[in-house]
């Protein structure tokens, strides 16, 4: 039988996040500001290319990822409840799965706001294949939350945790972001990409590699020192 005890942690985190809303408002606002500011870089009368729009979308998502996982891992720290999690009768990997699932839900929620912004501010109206688009977003988000949940705990207790996490995570995400940009550009009505399947393979491999690595390595990061 599938052990779903980690869902208790997910529900607890979601309740705390939505109790005051700040944990989701900040990433959404930051992403929207990024989309708006990048829209200013296009001269009046010129169109933003599908590739540029996809890049801005995934950049906004990456910044949201940093804020989401900093919030998720700082909740126990703020309430001095991290030891409680460590003592709870479940493997530490469940903490990683739970945080990853919560992060995925919050990231999808943030992307729900980024998408209309891409259409309005960047003029992307030629989208094709909504279900494929959803599949691509879920595939890339899987890799993002796998890394975010693994390394989100790294910067806890550090004064400049947002900047530290950005410096550590962003370079790791590059292959995944390239895949997301190429697949996103194709689905936003950009030029055909004959390597679309291969880009999907890169995104899938990224998610699989980092999920496997996280299951093995997360206890080393989250343990009490």
């Amino acid at each position, binding site marked *: 039988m599938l052990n779903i005890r980690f869902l208790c942690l997910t529900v607890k985190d979601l309740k705390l996040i939505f109790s005051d809303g700040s944990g989701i408002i900040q990433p959404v606002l930051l992403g929207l500001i990024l989309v708006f500011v990048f829209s200013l870089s296009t001269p009046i009368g010129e169109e933003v290319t599908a590739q540029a729009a996809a890049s801005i979308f995934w950049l906004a998502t990456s910044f949201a990822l940093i804020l989401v996982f900093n919030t998720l891992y700082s909740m126990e720290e703020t309430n001095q409840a991290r030891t409680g999690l460590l003592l709870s009768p479940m493997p530490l990997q469940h903490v990683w799965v739970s945080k990853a699932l919560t992060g995925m839900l919050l990231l999808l929620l943030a992307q729900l706001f980024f998408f209309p912004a891409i259409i309005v501010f960047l003029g992307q109206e030629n989208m094709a294949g909504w279900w494929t688009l959803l599949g691509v977003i879920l595939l890339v988000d899987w890799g993002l939350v796998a890394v975010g949940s693994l390394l989100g705990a790294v910067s806890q207790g550090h004064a400049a945790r947002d900047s530290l996490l950005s410096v550590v995570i962003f370079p790791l995400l590059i292959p995944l972001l*390239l895949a997301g940009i190429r697949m996103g550009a194709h689905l936003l009505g950009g030029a055909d990409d004959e390597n679309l399947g291969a880009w999907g393979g890169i995104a899938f491999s990224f998610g699989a590699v980092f999920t496997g690595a996280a299951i093995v390595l997360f206890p080393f990061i989250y343990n009490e020192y």
Partner: protein
Amino acid sequence: MSDNSIMVRSIPALAVMGAAGLIIAQYFIWIYAPVEATMGIMQKIFYFHLPMAWWGLICFFVVFCASLVFLISKNPFMDRLSQAAAEMGLLYSALALATGSLWARAAWNTWWTWDPRLSTTLVMWFIYAGYLALRQSIDNPQKMRAVSAVLGVVAFLNVPLVFLSARMWRSIHPAVFGSKGGGLEPEMMTTVLVCIVAWGILTSGILFYRLRQLDIKDRVKNLFIF
């Protein structure tokens, strides 16, 4: 690591051999190897660029192996080895990027191009710069060692994906060691190999020296703790 260890005693020998190797390499580069017909003297950059790129990547592989062993054994020596190798890898990849940029300007009339090898080197540079920044920012030494080891492992797992994705983006880099020799003259190939060996010996010497420094630093720190 004790004063009598083979590694410490080998530092002066490696330094002398490395210096001698580099002097011999200069003969191969400037006298033995022919001047390339198209690029002329600028092609000589290649004899510095390639060994640095290779040894940079090897240093990052050492970080991966040492981090893995550290997570299993908790041996502080492995942590120090990871740090020393990451520093060397960062330095070499920075030099490889600088010389690669000079090459790109001479050969392709651009300072930078989206090439798999150049891009992978740059991404690795960013990752290991973040790795060293992380090491400096965590006060608890036990946590710092564990977290750094995890990052040292996942950073190298990313290399094939970075390379593949950069290659799919686009590439104009020449194949040096291709299936048919990559178009290098035999004299040029010999010179490249001499340079790789010379830089390898010097790299080992500097790596051991840095390890020795980090060992002494830890011992001094412990003196003040207790």
